[in-house]
């Protein structure tokens, strides 16, 4: 008896415990309206507060030890750099041929005593291919029908083998230059690259090999670096047809320098490799005038919001600020710097934080208005570039191979033509780069200590994944709750077979998603057609997509699927929640921006004809629904952003095509998000808004 009783009580306990959870869930579902309002508001406020929550960066990997060794880069190296700069400018002016500089560089590299070779390739346009998302390999056999010889690109590459190293790892230096139109700053950047290379060729502390790639960026630096990396990582077969074509074409084209090639031997075209890449630095010099000090801009965003390890940015920042006295800048959106509402928000936050600090001095939220404005602008740029999914420089090519890379763009205080300014500038930049290389050289493992998922709000401040996921989580939390509320309310009111009615709604949602998928693949078909301008492509795309949508609706009506807007909304919300969660894993920034648009729309949408008490409430609901539907439509959102951020020029329908083209040519996941998640969600919302039925019960 006692045992039975015990069992009973335990069962009861279990029951009551499970009931508690259920009851909590039921409570949330019952108050879904309040919950969604609170969560949405909290999510957006927390997102706005991100610049306040940013932490100072620190060097996480002990082994890096930036700045612990004195730089050996001296005035001798500055002279080297100057010599090469002058040579390039003289020779480049004399001969306009694209390979002249590469040859010159190779001479210099050989003179230093390092290994060297030419890398050459034919640039190909990045075509849209539906199966090529997330895979960076392109068909090597996909040659243009008749490549013109002038389109070859020749890069000079130098390799220093670490004298006592094991040759398993390398550090890559890239200096892009334009061989057709070599500017003075290009020449200076080549000079810096060479001077560091020549310095490293005789230091004794190298543990990793050094590869210097002087990338001819005639057809875009990314293309060049990417093709070099592809050759570096892919196997090269000597019998490959394209190579033979390359060789023949190249030598034919440069018959005047045939004897020179003979002297060097054909060895100079043999692709040489060093070890796996530990890190890569892309060096650039830009001759734009700075106000006070020489400055360094760091670009880090690679494709699909991937970032290099924060430690790499940290060492560059640390050395630049604390050793070389450079001003470090990262990109920021000017609109936010000037917007008065941001300033107002900043001042409010400043008051709140000072108040909070008075309450508890341990709280470290302390931000001034100016800091907040700058942080917001920088954070916005960080999120924008990550969300776009397009790399901000040729460092993005390295990220495809999981190599940490940044672009360091130096700009001098005044014109580089001044001798003193130039040598001081060269000394600083050279020492900075040497310091970074020496730090990376100390590493035994890949970068792994610091963050890979972060936003920067200042060069020395970051928001880590642990912080920025919280606003997003709060923002999308109401979606499942509201879905459950709608589902249960509909189920309770309807008859017995209503429990399976959601399948019909799911069918509708599935068909719309299918339509969206077909729409996303349409450009591949359209590109085969001889349509001239981007605007005609865009209009064709839109027309075909709308046709397909109408066909889908015809199918839906003909099969008389009708399920009531509440179920439809519930299933749509579930689909949107799943889509957003998946996207937040692939590219967080896209998901964040998308969620800010989609979530309010999904939560608020109601049939326009639905009767509600009060004219004012109805009007409010209608206007908000309409506004959200307009804003959340991707082309409309693009237009609004364009006008808001002050981009000039008249709006053309072709712009959308070009914009989509950019996205797919960079294999951006944002394209997939827009067409697979965002667009069907918007269409379904529109569908619900225009739902013919009146009242909550279904027509059928």
């Amino acid at each position, binding site marked *: 008896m006692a045992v039975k009783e015990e069992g009973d009580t335990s069962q009861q306990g279990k029951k009551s415990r499970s009931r508690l959870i259920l009851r909590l869930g039921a409570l949330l579902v019952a108050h879904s309206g309040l919950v969604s309002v609170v969560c949405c508001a909290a999510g957006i406020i927390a997102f706005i507060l991100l610049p306040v929550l940013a932490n100072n960066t620190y060097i*996480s990997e002990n082994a890096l030890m930036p700045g*612990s060794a004195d730089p050996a880069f001296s005035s001798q190296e500055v002279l080297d750099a100057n010599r090469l700069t002058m040579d390039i400018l003289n020779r480049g002016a004399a001969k306009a041929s694209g390979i002249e500089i590469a040859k010159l560089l190779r001479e210099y590299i050989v003179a230093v005593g390092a290994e060297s070779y030419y890398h050459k390739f034919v640039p190909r346009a990045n075509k849209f291919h539906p199966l090529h998302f997330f895979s960076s390999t392109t068909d090597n056999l996909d040659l243009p029908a008749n490549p013109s010889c002038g389109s070859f690109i020749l890069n000079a590459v130098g390799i220093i083998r670490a004298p006592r190293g094991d040759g398993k790892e390398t550090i890559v230096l890239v200096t892009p230059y334009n061989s057709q139109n070599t500017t003075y700053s290009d020449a200076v950047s080549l000079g810096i690259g060479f001077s560091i290379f020549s310095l490293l060729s005789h230091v004794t*502390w190298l*543990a990793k090999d050094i590869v210097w790639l002087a990338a001819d960026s005639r057809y875009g630096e990314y293309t060049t670096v990417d093709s070099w990396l592809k050759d570096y990582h892919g196997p090269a077969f000597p019998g490959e047809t394209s190579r033979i074509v390359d060789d023949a074409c190249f030598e034919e084209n440069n018959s005047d320098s045939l004897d020179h090639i003979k002297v060097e031997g054909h060895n100079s075209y043999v692709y040489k490799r060093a070890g796996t890449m530990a890190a890569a630095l892309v060096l650039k010099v830009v001759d734009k005038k700075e106000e006070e000090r020489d400055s360094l801009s760091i670009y880090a965003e690679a494709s699909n919001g991937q970032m290099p390890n924060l430690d790499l940015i940290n060492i560059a920042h640390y050395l630049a600020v604390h050793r070389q006295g450079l001003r470090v800048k990262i990109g920021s959106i000017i609109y936010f710097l000037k917007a008065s509402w941001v300033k107002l928000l900043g001042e409010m936050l400043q008051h709140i934080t000072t108040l909070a600090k008075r309450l508890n001095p341990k709280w470290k939220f302390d931000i001034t208005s100016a800091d907040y404005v700058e942080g917001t602008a920088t954070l916005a740029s960080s999120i924008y570039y990550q969300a776009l999914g397009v790399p901000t420089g040729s460092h993005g090519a390295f990220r495809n191979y999981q190599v940490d890379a940044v672009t360091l763009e130096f700009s001098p205080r005044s014109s580089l033509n001044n001798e003193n300014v130039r040598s001081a500038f060269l000394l600083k930049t050279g020492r900075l780069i040497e310091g970074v290389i020496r730090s990376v050289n*100390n590493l*035994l*493992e890949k970068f*792994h*200590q610091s963050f890979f998922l972060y936003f920067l709000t200042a060069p020395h401040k970051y928001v880590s994944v642990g912080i920025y996921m919280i606003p997003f989580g709060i923002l999308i939390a109401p979606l499942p709750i509201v879905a459950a509320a709608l589902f249960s309310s509909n189920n309770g009111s309807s008859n017995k077979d209503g429990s399976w009615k959601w399948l019909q709604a799911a069918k509708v949602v599935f068909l719309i998603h299918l339509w969206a998928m077909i729409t996303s693949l349409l450009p591949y078909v359209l590109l085969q057609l001889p349509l001239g301008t981007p605007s005609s492509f865009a209009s064709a795309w839109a027309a075909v997509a709308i046709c397909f949508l109408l066909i889908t609706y015809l199918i839906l009506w003909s099969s008389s699927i009708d399920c009531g807007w509440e179920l439809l909304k519930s299933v749509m919300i579930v689909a949107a929640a799943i889509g957003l969660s998946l996207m937040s894993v692939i590219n967080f920034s896209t998901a964040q921006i998308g969620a800010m648009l989609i979530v309010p729309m999904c939560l608020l949408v109601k049939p326009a004809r639905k009767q509600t008490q009060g004219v004012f409430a109805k009007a409010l609901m209608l206007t908000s629904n309409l506004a959200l539907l307009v804003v959340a439509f991707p082309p409309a959102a693009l237009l609004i952003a364009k006008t808001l951020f002050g981009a000039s020029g008249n709006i053309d329908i072709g712009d959308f095509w070009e914009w989509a083209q950019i996205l797919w040519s960079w294999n951006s996941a944002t394209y997939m998000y827009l067409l697979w998640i965002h667009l069907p969600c918007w269409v379904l919302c529109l569908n619900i808004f225009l739902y013919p039925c009146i009242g909550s019960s279904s027509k059928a």
Partner: protein
Amino acid sequence: MATRDPSMICCFRLLFLLLFSVPLIASSSSWASMHHNNWAVLVCTSRYWSDSESGYPGFKFSFCNKLPRYHIEINSCNSKLEVERFNYRHMANTLSLYRTVKRLGIPDERIILMLADDMACNMRNNYPAQVFNNENHQLNLYGDNVEVDYRGYEVTVENFMRVLTGRHDPAVPRSKRLLSDEGSHILLYMTGHGGDEFLKFQDSEELQSHDLADAVKQMKEKNRFKELLIMVDTCQAATLFNQVLSSLMKPKNIRNHLLNILEAELLPSAVSFPSTSVLDFGSSMSQYLVYGYGFLPAFKHILILQSPGVLAIGSSMKGENSYSHHLDSDIGVSVVDRFTYYTLAFFEKLNMYSNASLSRYGTSSMPSETLGRKRARLHDCTMCGCYYKRQIPQGLWDVGGHGHLFNSYNPRTLMSTAYYRMDLYQRPLPEVPVTSFFGSVMKTIHTDAAYMGLSIPPKTEAQFLPGDGENQQLRIENEPDLEKDGNKQTKELHCIYHEWLNLLQERFENTDAELLFRYGFGTMVFLLTISTWLLS
């Protein structure tokens, strides 16, 4: 001439063996046997050019709070003053000590050098095959001949324990073993990254104070040392000795002894001494005992009986860090730790014949800050308290830093408190020359002949009295394995041979050499003529 009779000597020696060797071994050979060789075990436990601890991204921690089990409460490595945890300096530390002991006379075969990584040949080293402990690059610690016994991944806790306890695989060569005996003075130097009661080995293991205590105890029981100096340069080094003390002292025994003495004879005031509080002291009693033994001769007696001859010095107290001395901006790493830097600076001024002692003060003297704390804790124990007030002088460290090793550590320059404890050590430190651990300077006994079988000074006869020192002298003069029974037979054979030799010698001495020569010459001529005659 009877004493010169070799057979007599042999018999006497056997007798001596039988009579004296047994009590000698029995009576705690730790302090009865004589110091006759020096060993050094120098251990560098940390790997990599610069420390790259693997961990989770985004969590800035020092390894001190990464460690499992019970090291959580200590967070000392995250102090404001950035600790430079880079491992070149650990190798430089160890090589500094290696250089010192080698220079002061310990031969390479008696130094067990364990280096966890080869910094000298690391490709990041600006100066190939050279290790410096100073920015000025004057002193190459790597030298011309460094004999590394355990290197790289051989430096493990297991191998370290095996070296100390002598439990090796039969295949391990002699050069990798610590072949010390009960007359050995051993210097055990360890450096690396440590924390509260542990020392990290190779980023993957740790040596805990329990392990060290266990090893020392085993060594003691196996008579592997006479005196042991443990020198540790790491964060919170002093904590590493905690268990050594309690394991060797057996607080229970000491407490009983103490109570007996207190009650029976010594202190009239002991009546008022609350025995319960003594009992409550428990295991920590042994820690406090040391401060009392100078006061009570009986305590000293106990301690000497128990004393294992272990002396320990650490670079820092609990909660303190061991800081690097300076950073070499050429090599790009910090090159030496402060404690070892000043140790080397101290020894560089000395030579083999120096009389520098370990400490200026005979008792366990500590810098005054720590002293105050101890005193507060000991306040209920009146005898210890008054002892303190009497004994501890004000300025404890040498300003110039010469003459006394332990006093050369100035907490201001060290930025940590060098902490040593001599609870387990009975000799007064001012009388212990540094060379008794860091060098290999023996007390030599002059004998008339190189080989004792031929002539023994007549004085030895009188030395068989059971005075300690004389006993030891004799034992030194004999071969060390004499006490083993198996050797007796060979000894007798030796004696017969000696008898013949001596007989011949006596003949030579007694007869006229010239006469012998003539006789011999005549015999040779005679033999020659006979042989030629026989041949013809």
